[in-house]
């Protein structure tokens, strides 16, 4: 085996695809370059929970054979990472929860199945907040994932955001060409903004939820994190599609998202919602938003002010609806069919002890809130009320989209924060999602595009919100920001300069290299 070529990890998904087809390098070399980069970075970043070396080698070899025969599929030979929320056949899937300790699914999620059928190569499973509940990747039972970005002159470990922190960190650190992610209240877009990557949450119904560990079913949607808008468009196209196994997927042809990027934006109507100028927003973020407006004007788009009057209600309504759905979805973890079991005096005691020990504090908190707002006597006051507010939020967007094509907002109210900085206050953590939850509440497509840097050198993102099933226009607008923001800047590979890995880090790296663990049976 030749030594891995590190420069191959610097390619975009699109240029790697073209290079493979021109036979400038092989899919096996491309996979090996990424696996070597993972080995070097993972002790510091904790992005991968495990790597699937053997599967990657076999898939890459098949891709090389297909390319040799002129039979390449759309993502042939392109190595990607998978958020641990997606069930992968024969490969441990835990959603980063102890309650799914050792769970090895015997089936494949539709989204990952679609990607493998398109020729993509699996590198491994990526860190995330437990059951996707969190905005900093700190609720993972495998420990937090670390951002490859640092503040200038400061070695403090920063969050890559969450819940798709592993996906964002891996893509930003060039440990995958792209990754799958999921977004219930901002879990694709906020990490993308924090790591200078592109994250797309498509319209509800575009991607199948089959085999994706459920959090809040009326809000959950899969999508990609990638390094360019083009790469995100390519990934999205392969992930989407009607699936008879998920009745909420729409039965319509998936557009050619990459092709849509070529269209002009002149005359495009961009909406600016005044309600997104919130108190406590960093002045840098405000300036970035103004910059975005100027870029669209320069590109020939028309700027229109729109009003989304119920914006302030979206976050509290979300924190009723999402926990309510979660408490119902997570009822399945009972210590009987899979994962952890903790014995008790009787069957109810067994359920209660298993769930108390298997779920982390944030998940327990949300289950209790959900059980409360759904309980007799409180259901109408909280749950039905939140659903009525949800109608108003959607109505706001419907009205705004009568006069604009895309809405432009910041993705997050602040740049990335340090690990530990916000984990003491759940409410403060929830405020991270203030600009992103509205999109899930209304079922719309949204994306975050890297747009600039904070004064201390951290990436900042702008959010674009599209009309239902009009990801094409949204992606096209994303290109305007990407082009105007100038050449992509990559984080410095500080993890390569670090002293030899400490014992703990080396141990984590070994664990990450282990193949899919045999299911451990938990306590009996």
């Amino acid at each position, binding site marked *: 085996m030749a030594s891995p070529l590190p420069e191959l990890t610097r390619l975009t998904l699109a240029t790697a695809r073209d290079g493979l087809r021109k036979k400038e390098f092989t899919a096996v070399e491309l996979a090996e370059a990424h696996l070597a980069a993972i080995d070097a970075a993972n002790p510091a970043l904790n992005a991968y929970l495990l790597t699937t070396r053997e599967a990657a080698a076999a898939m890459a070899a098949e891709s090389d054979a297909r390319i040799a025969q002129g039979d390449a599929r759309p993502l042939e030979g392109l190595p990607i990472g998978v958020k641990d929320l997606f069930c992968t056949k024969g490969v441990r899937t835990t959603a980063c929860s102890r309650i799914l300790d050792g769970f090895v*699914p015997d089936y494949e999620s539709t989204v990952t199945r679609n990607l493998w059928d398109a020729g993509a190569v699996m590198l491994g499973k990526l860190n995330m907040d437990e059951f996707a509940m969190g905005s900093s990747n700190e609720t993972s039972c495998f420990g937090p994932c670390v951002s490859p970005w640092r503040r200038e002159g400061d070695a403090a470990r920063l969050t890559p955001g969450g819940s798709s922190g592993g996906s964002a960190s891996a893509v930003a650190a060039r440990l995958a060409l792209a990754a799958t992610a999921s977004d219930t209240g901002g879990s694709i877009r906020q990490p993308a903004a924090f790591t200078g990557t592109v994250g797309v949450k498509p319209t509800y119904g575009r991607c199948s939820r089959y085999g994706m560990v459920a959090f809040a079913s009326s809000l959950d949607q899969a999508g990609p994190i990638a390094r360019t808008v083009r790469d995100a468009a390519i990934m999205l196209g392969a992930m989407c599609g009607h699936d008879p196994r998920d009745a909420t997927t729409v039965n319509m042809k998936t557009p050619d998202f990459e092709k849509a990027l070529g269209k002009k934006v002149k005359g495009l109507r961009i909406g600016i919602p005044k309600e997104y100028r919130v108190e406590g927003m960093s002045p840098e973020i405000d300036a970035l938003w103004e910059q975005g407006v100027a870029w669209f004007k320069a590109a020939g788009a028309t700027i229109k002010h729109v009003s989304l009057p119920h914006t302030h209600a979206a976050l509290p309504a979300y924190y009723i609806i999402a926990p309510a759905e979660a408490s119902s979805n997570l009822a399945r973890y009972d210590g009987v069919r899979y994962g952890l079991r903790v014995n008790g005096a009787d069957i109810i005691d067994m359920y209660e002890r298993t769930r108390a020990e298997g779920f982390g504090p944030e998940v327990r*908190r949300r289950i209790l809130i959900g059980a409360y707002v759904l309980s007799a006597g409180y259901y109408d006051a909280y749950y039905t009320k939140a659903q009525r*507010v949800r109608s108003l939020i959607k109505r706001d967007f419907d009205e705004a989209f009568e006069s604009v094509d895309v809405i432009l907002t910041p993705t997050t109210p602040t740049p990335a924060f340090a690990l530990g900085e916000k984990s003491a206050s759940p409410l403060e953590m929830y405020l991270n999602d203030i600009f992103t939850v509205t999109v899930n509440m209304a079922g719309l497509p949204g994306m975050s595009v890297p747009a600039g840097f904070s004064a201390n050198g951290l990436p900042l993102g702008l959010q674009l919100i599209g009309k239902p099933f009009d990801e094409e226009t949204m992606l096209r607008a994303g290109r305007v920001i990407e082009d105007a923001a100038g050449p992509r800047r990559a984080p410095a590979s500080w993890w390569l300069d670090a002293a030899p890995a400490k014992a703990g880090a080396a141990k984590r790296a070994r664990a990450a290299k282990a193949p899919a663990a045999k299911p451990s049976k938990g306590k009996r």
Partner: protein
Amino acid sequence: MQIDDALVRSIARLARLKVEEEQVGAVGRELTSIIGWVEQLQSIDTENVPPLTGMASQRMALRPDEVNDGDCAAVIVKNAPLAEDDFFVVPKVLE
């Protein structure tokens, strides 16, 4: 809305989630603060606004009422913490 100790115990039982007795007070205070925050929704007028119950944009598709999966009991119990033959094993339920 104040979530007192009795209410915490009752919610925890509904959720089948053990809350240790010494944690009941702290959990109650935390839930009270979050519920207090979401209660700002009460000030929004939702008279005559229907609840939005889901996002599905189409009617549920029908399919023939035929078995299209199954005969895989061994696969289903494979991840169980405790299984015997093709059965999940649980603590005794009936005396």
